[in-house]
């Protein structure tokens, strides 16, 4: 599928709901430099979501969808959880896999797309919660990294099983008491970013979603690096405000508090030399392109 296919038959254009008309008339698909600033303007992102009011995950979802470099040729693979409540609303291809096996599904999908469309760029992005990524699906997650599968894994880390009532997860912080974990977490938060690095991920970032421009940058980097070099991993803190006893308005502050220096979501990045060289090269090309465009404009 590419954006040329997404056209409404002339006879039916006027009867289509407005969001579909907007999809084909002013979508950001195919537009260079799309980013989080398109949120709220373009309807292919998410017009409405079914998450709780003030849920940081809804912000994360929007920033990620707005930042995908090639959305018309991207397939997202999700797993059961709060994310799967949003996927029906997004205008991007997605697969809802069984709980935990999202990275296995994405591996097969990426290989099949590469074989089926050899001349085309097709991105695969996994988006799952911490339970699916780190607990139940850890085997599949790690195996895909060991095999150097070329896709991005994004983990929405809310540090517990949120939509089943607050059970303890591997990414929960030590000592935290949740509704379904009254004894408090007995061991440390699993250090998945470090594990990802050791398992072969060439680009790893651990941060919160409080800064949209940062999310745009890391999502673009992760997808572009995965396309060319190898697996990439983003661990994003999207706190469940209900399960940690916060109000709708407090999600953003919670993330800001968690990203302070020394805190568990202080910005952390690992990038391999090859990936670094790739990004540098990309930045230089971009710079040269801008300079030539500026020159052409001056001459005109």
């Amino acid at each position: 599928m590419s954006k040329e296919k997404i056209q409404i038959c002339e006879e039916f254009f006027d009867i289509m709901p407005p969001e579909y008309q907007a999809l084909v008339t002013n979508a950001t698909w195919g537009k260079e430099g799309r980013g989080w600033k398109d949120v709220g303007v373009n309807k292919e992102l998410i017009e409405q979501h079914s998450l709780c009011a003030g849920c940081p995950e809804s912000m994360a979802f929007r920033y990620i969808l707005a930042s995908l470099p090639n959305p018309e040729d991207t397939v997202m693979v999700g797993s059961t959880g709060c994310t799967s409540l949003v996927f029906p609303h997004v205008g991007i291809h997605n697969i809802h896999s069984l709980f935990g096996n999202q990275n296995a599904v994405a591996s097969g999908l990426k290989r099949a797309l590469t074989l089926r469309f050899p001349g085309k760029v097709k991105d695969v992005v996994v988006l799952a919660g911490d339970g699916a990524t780190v607990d139940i699906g850890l085997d599949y997650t790690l195996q895909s990294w060991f095999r150097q599968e070329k896709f991005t894994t994004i983990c929405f880390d809310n540090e517990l099983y949120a939509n089943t009532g607050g059970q303890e997860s591997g990414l929960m912080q030590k000592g935290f008491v949740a509704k379904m974990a009254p004894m408090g977490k007995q061991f440390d938060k699993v250090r998945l970013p470090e594990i990802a690095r050791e398992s072969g991920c060439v680009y790893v970032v651990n941060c919160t979603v409080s800064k949209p421009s940062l999310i745009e940058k890391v999502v673009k980097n992760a997808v572009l690096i995965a396309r060319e070099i190898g697996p990439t991993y983003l661990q994003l803190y999207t706190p469940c405000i209900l399960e940690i006893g916060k109000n709708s308005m407090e999600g953003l502050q919670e993330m800001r508090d968690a990203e302070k220096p020394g805190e568990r979501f202080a910005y952390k990045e690992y990038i391999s030399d090859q990936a670094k060289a790739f990004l540098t090269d990309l930045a230089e090309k971009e710079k040269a392109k801008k300079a030539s465009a500026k020159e052409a404009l001056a001459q005109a």
Partner: protein
Amino acid sequence: MNHPGHYMVRPGPEAFLPPAAAAMGNALPDPGQAHINGRIVPEEEAFQEAARMFLGGTVPTIFPGPLVLWAWNEKAKKKATAIKFLYDTLKECAPAGAQPMLIPMPDYRPKYPKINPEVEINPNHPNLTIWHNKIDVCMFVGVHCHQANLSLKIIRGGTNCYTIAMCAQAGHEDACLSFRDASVEKIMHLAEWVKKLKGTVPFGALKKHVAALETQDRAGGVRS
């Protein structure tokens, strides 16, 4: 042509979970045939019946699905033109008082918390659009079969709408009337029948027809 033991598929509301007509023993028509209320008939008879139902309805509605709404290929574009022609013909030929409608089914995502039933239909809760617009006869065209099956059963379960399926594959047992192998020619032929029967079907005749169906036993006989 008649299957004496067929299960009569008629407008509901039938039940919360109406049985699939296929599970009740109804068969799909062969090429050149169609079915009316589960009874296999020559296709021409079904064209006439479908045109009569459309003209007899108070809000006859066409629901074009993704296969014809989106310009996937030349064939889809031609079908779209034919469907629009059928709709225009229906508007032109429907008796005074009838309100023909054309409501799209753009995709199959379960669009909750809400859809706007005035402007679209969703296969996962088609009853909302039918209830809201008081649609008493509708035709599915360009809807993938698995979604059409789901939707037709929901409509039969919870509404009193007469359903017609213009299916590009083998037809639908769960519609009250179903064609198979839908093509541009068949859609245009239906439009011709609508034109031909203009002025012969009184306004609201569908209601009487459905009431008559109600008096018959499901197995095709007359209720004692």
